[in-house]
């Protein structure tokens, strides 16, 4: 028996029916194949033919998500603008000036820069152990941060 004869038989058992009678290796291979096929047939799920009802499945997060409800946006905008600008009108304040004033509460770039530039002064005045604490806490907190960010998300698997 040559390897090529065994290969030919295993490739097409029906074309070379007499080979297996004289080849022990191929007999063994065929026995294993048949056992595997029986195992697969046994493991195959026997359905009762009824299809899975998709309506019975829970609603997925993306179902209906693409709807753009502009009416809801306008309604909320009316409520928020009404309460905000209406409040200014009630107090006798020009609503536009009140709105602009409310938004300009943030620091100007110049003041932000001044605060940032004062940082080296404060750091230079701090005692030595504060510097050590800052660096130790920086390393520790960022290690914890990285550990937390590596944690597997739940989300869809929940």
């Amino acid at each position, binding site marked *: 028996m040559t390897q090529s004869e065994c290969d030919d038989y295993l490739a097409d058992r029906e074309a070379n029916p007499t080979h297996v009678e004289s080849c022990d290796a191929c007999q063994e291979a065929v026995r294993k194949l048949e056992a595997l096929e029986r195992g697969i047939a046994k493991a195959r799920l026997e359905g009762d033919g009824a299809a899975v009802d998709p309506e019975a499945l829970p*609603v997925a*997060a*993306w*179902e209906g*998500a693409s*709807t*753009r*409800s502009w009416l*809801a*946006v306008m309604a*909320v*905008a009316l409520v*928020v603008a009404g309460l*905000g*600008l*209406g*409040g200014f009108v009630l*107090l006798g*304040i020009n609503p536009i*000036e*009140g*709105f602009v*004033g*409310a938004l*300009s*509460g943030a*620091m100007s770039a110049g003041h932000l*820069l*001044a*605060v*940032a530039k*004062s*940082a*080296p*002064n*404060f*750091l*230079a*005045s*701090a*005692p030595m*152990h504060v510097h050590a*604490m*800052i660096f130790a*806490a*920086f390393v*520790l*907190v*960022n290690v*914890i*941060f990285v*550990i*937390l*960010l*590596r944690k597997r*998300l*739940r*989300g*869809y698997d*929940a």
Partner: protein
Amino acid sequence: MPSKRKDRFVLALVLLASALLLLPALSATDGSTKTKSDDGAAIVSVGKALHITDPVDGNVQSFGGSIEIDTAVHGDVLSIGGDVIVGVEGHVDGDLVVLGGKVTRKEAGAVDGSVVQPLWIGDALRKIPDGSDFLESLDRRFSVLILALKMSVLLVWLGVAVILALAGGREVRSSSLELRANPFHTLTVGLVGFTSFVLTAIVFGYLIPYFIGLPLLIALGLFAVVAKVYGMVAVFHAVGWYLFAPKTRDAIERRRYLKGDLAMVVLGLLVIGIVRMIPVVGGLVWMVASLMGLGSALATKFGRREPWFLAVATTRA
């Protein structure tokens, strides 16, 4: 490492980090005051109350201590985490910037430049003509003025939320889902992330004299703002989904308006905005929502659900 042991390990690290952060506050060290810094600040104080009685040529900067001014300061005054009192004899030629503190001006106490208190709602009133007349109403628990000011800011949040929901609805929904599925984890990530940003900003402060510090601070600030804004929109979506989302397919079919990511975001924004009006509780709710939003933005990598750090596993041939 098994999950429970890892959680205990992380908890131990968090407690250790908290202890390290609290130590400087608990230690019995007095603050320090320095005169003449490199950038011309005449007085720099850390952790000490300052009482200025002699005229000062230059800026005055204080961190973690109050400032009482009873003379002329020929420069700017900056206070972080402390109150400022400008006495009757006091006078500030430049700007007065106070972060996290109160400003009290005695009768004749004058400030020639701007008085800036960005973390105080009354600062906005100074920018409105005749707005200062309403400053007293801010002491009340509830006032129409506080409602109007907060709703004005909420209107801007509405615009930003709509833009984000339209541009990245899937990402916002993904972050919102993680928030709802794992609220404790997102809050923890938000808390640790915020602490990390603050500490990183302080460390970048050391680099300011070497020019690289300021660009790094600006980049960090921008990243933090983007994360916070995106995170808040995810929180709006989560709240809106809990309260208003259709829970069955029939409901999805029947509804015309109260469905979709956009509707959930704006409705959630309205609910949180109204809760924010409640004195004390409202501020707390907004703060927790901000932390959870920041956590969900960072945990989900802005909704993309990709790992920040790739773990490379090798396999044997």
